[in-house]
């Protein structure tokens, strides 16, 4: 208990010092004559941000340099990158990450749109939405542990128990160790284990998508749907041709947010895929696995650079979409 209080006190003191320093600087800046006063004030507020940014940029640059070194920190050129794109295991990781981005983003968004559409103006809508949103609040590690129970081959494994209810002799399945999908095992096809882990993230992300899209749906003017109906549109046509385009910006925001979260998928692979075993690894997982357990910092750094390259364009799309939404269609 005492520890908690002393930690809390430290936090409060820390924040107080931060505010006091900023306040003092701001006060000092306010004493300056124009035109310096406004510039100094701006600097006071932007300054901490720039310091934080440097704290990000410098390690990023160091990481970039690291990615050209080998396991023994000798110069390796583009060797790490070559290995990533030629080594079978690494190609599996790239393909997995791509599937994660496509399947989880697509399915979560579609589920979000569907639930938001049909729950809209339903009785008990807020309650239903709260239930759907709940998984979003669960930590990924927690979710991983919960779902491990579902997929477990042990007695309490929910999925296996359900299978046992089927007629005939059912063998116990080791779902999370099954790298095949419909009997296919390929570098380019995600295994059943990967798909089952994706289900967990869809379970989490669909709630987020539903809540955000549902809010956007409520912002669609009734007039617009009514006009479409008078123009002869069925409910379905009105939804696809008028409502969906109207909330396009929100859907892009949801999809880009999910895709960024999914590309960085790591903790669930650690908890459910045993750190990427049985062909479940992804880029972020590989970054960690190589850099730390495998002690190959160069390769880990190269994965980090690739991850950044993969996420950057999505952030750009997201930013442009946000601007378009602000400026109105």
């Amino acid at each position, binding site marked *: 208990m005492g520890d908690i209080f002393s930690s809390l006190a430290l936090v409060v003191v820390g924040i107080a010092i931060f505010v006091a320093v900023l306040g003092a600087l701001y006060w000092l800046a306010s004493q300056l004559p124009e035109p310096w006063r406004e510039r100094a004030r701006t600097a006071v507020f932007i300054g901490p941000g720039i310091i934080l940014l440097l704290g990000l940029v410098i390690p990023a640059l160091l990481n970039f340099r690291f990615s050209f070194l080998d396991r023994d920190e000798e110069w390796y050129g583009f060797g790490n990158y070559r290995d990533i794109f030629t080594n079978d295991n690494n190609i599996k990781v790239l393909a997995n990450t791509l599937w994660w981005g496509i399947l989880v983003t697509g399915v979560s968004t579609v589920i979000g749109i569907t639930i938001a559409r049909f729950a809209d103006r339903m009785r008990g809508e807020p309650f239903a939405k709260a239930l759907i949103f709940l998984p979003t609040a669960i930590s990924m590690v927690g979710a991983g542990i919960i779902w491990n129970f579902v997929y477990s081959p042990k007695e309490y494994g929910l999925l296996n128990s359900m299978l046992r209810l089927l007629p005939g002799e059912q063998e116990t399945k080791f779902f999370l160790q099954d790298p095949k999908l419909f009997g296919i095992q390929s570098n380019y096809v995600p295994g059943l284990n990967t798909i089952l882990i994706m289900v967990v993230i869809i379970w989490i992300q669909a709630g987020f998508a539903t809540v955000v899209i549902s809010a956007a749906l409520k912002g669609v*003017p009734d*007039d*617009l749907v*009514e*006009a*479409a*109906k*008078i*123009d*002869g*549109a*069925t409910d379905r*046509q009105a939804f696809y*041709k*008028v409502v969906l*385009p*109207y909330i*396009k910006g929100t859907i892009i925001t949801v999809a880009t947010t999910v895709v960024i979260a999914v590309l960085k998928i790591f903790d669930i692979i650690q908890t459910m895929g045993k750190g990427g075993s049985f062909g479940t690894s992804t880029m972020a997982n590989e970054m960690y696995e190589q850099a730390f357990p495998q002690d190959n910092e160069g390769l880990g750094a190269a994965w980090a650079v690739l991850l950044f390259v993969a996420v950057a364009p999505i952030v750009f799309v997201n930013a442009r979409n946000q601007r378009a939404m602000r400026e*109105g*269609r």
Partner: protein
Amino acid sequence: MSTLTMKNLQKKYPNGYEAVPGLDLHVDDGEFLVLVGPSGCGKSTVLRMVAGLEDISGGDLLIDDVVVNDRGPQQRDIAMVFQSYALYPNMTVEGNIAFAMKLRKTDKDVIKAKVAEVAELLELTAVLDRKPGQLSGGQRQRVAMGRAIVREPKLFLMDEPLSNLDAKLRVQTRAEIAKLQRRLGVTTMYVTHDQVEAMTMGDRVAVLRRGILMQCASPAQLYEAPDNLFVAQFIGSPSMNVLRGKVSSAGDEGIALELAGQTITLTGASAQRLAGLAAYVGQEIAIGMRPEAIGGDGTATIDIDVDLVEMLGSEKLVHATMGAPSVRSTDTAIETGSGNESTVVASLDPRREIRVGERVTLTLDTLRLHAFDLSTGAAIGRSTS
């Protein structure tokens, strides 16, 4: 071409509120009917029931003598112009106008030709590939019109289509819509709260109060012969002056009214018009005078105390005090003003010299005098019906 008929049309909400207790109304083929009334009078509800956007609680709605109560808006072959225009923001002007035809899988060349024709008519050709967000208010309004007329529907429904335009554009567009409707000859129901729009555009005007039809007649008839106090005061701007008066006598020599301590005698045609007053001898009634019935031609006179003179160029509005309480028909009841004084407005020739503070004697055109029953608000006419 089509007709629209409402037989005892009702709208009740689940909470028990009766927005429209039972409306009988008929719109003739090619007619322009304006539904007018203060806000909350149920006019939009009626329009939305006709459009199929609102369920009908009772009675029948007929388009071309076919009951369409249970048809969705898609199956009624109507077009509607919304107050907000409700343009599809993601589509171009062309897309907006063509949307209904595309849904019906009309031939592409036909769509193109029709859109071009409508765009030409509404001067939208130059902006066909723009999105609604890039258009001015007037252009948006025209796109909304274009979307309606391109379909050649059985009915046009318009829900306050001018209220988002500025005053000048509104006057101009008002005339354009009326002209367009006459040219296309499509049966039209138009909802507005603005009595000037109602008077200028409609072949007939239906005045609604709390879901009840107060009168449906031509603009001239509504103005000259209102059925009741509500219509009398709703139509006309400035509105009719209505004061509490008394019928002192009625006989062969005419009818004598007492108003603010003055006597007004009606003889000949003026007396015949209001012969029903004979039943009110000795009783109080509401006496109505349009602003322009004061100070023009007339046989009777009234004295007024001038408080304010407004010079409008084409007329001079004189606000004056008379020594009788005013009577107002509100949304729910007929109210008599407190005190024994009220303000009347007279519209005079602008060249006439009138000074504030003066007591002046003005003529009163007794042929344009109106009388109403104080308890029911019904107009008193030739007979006591």
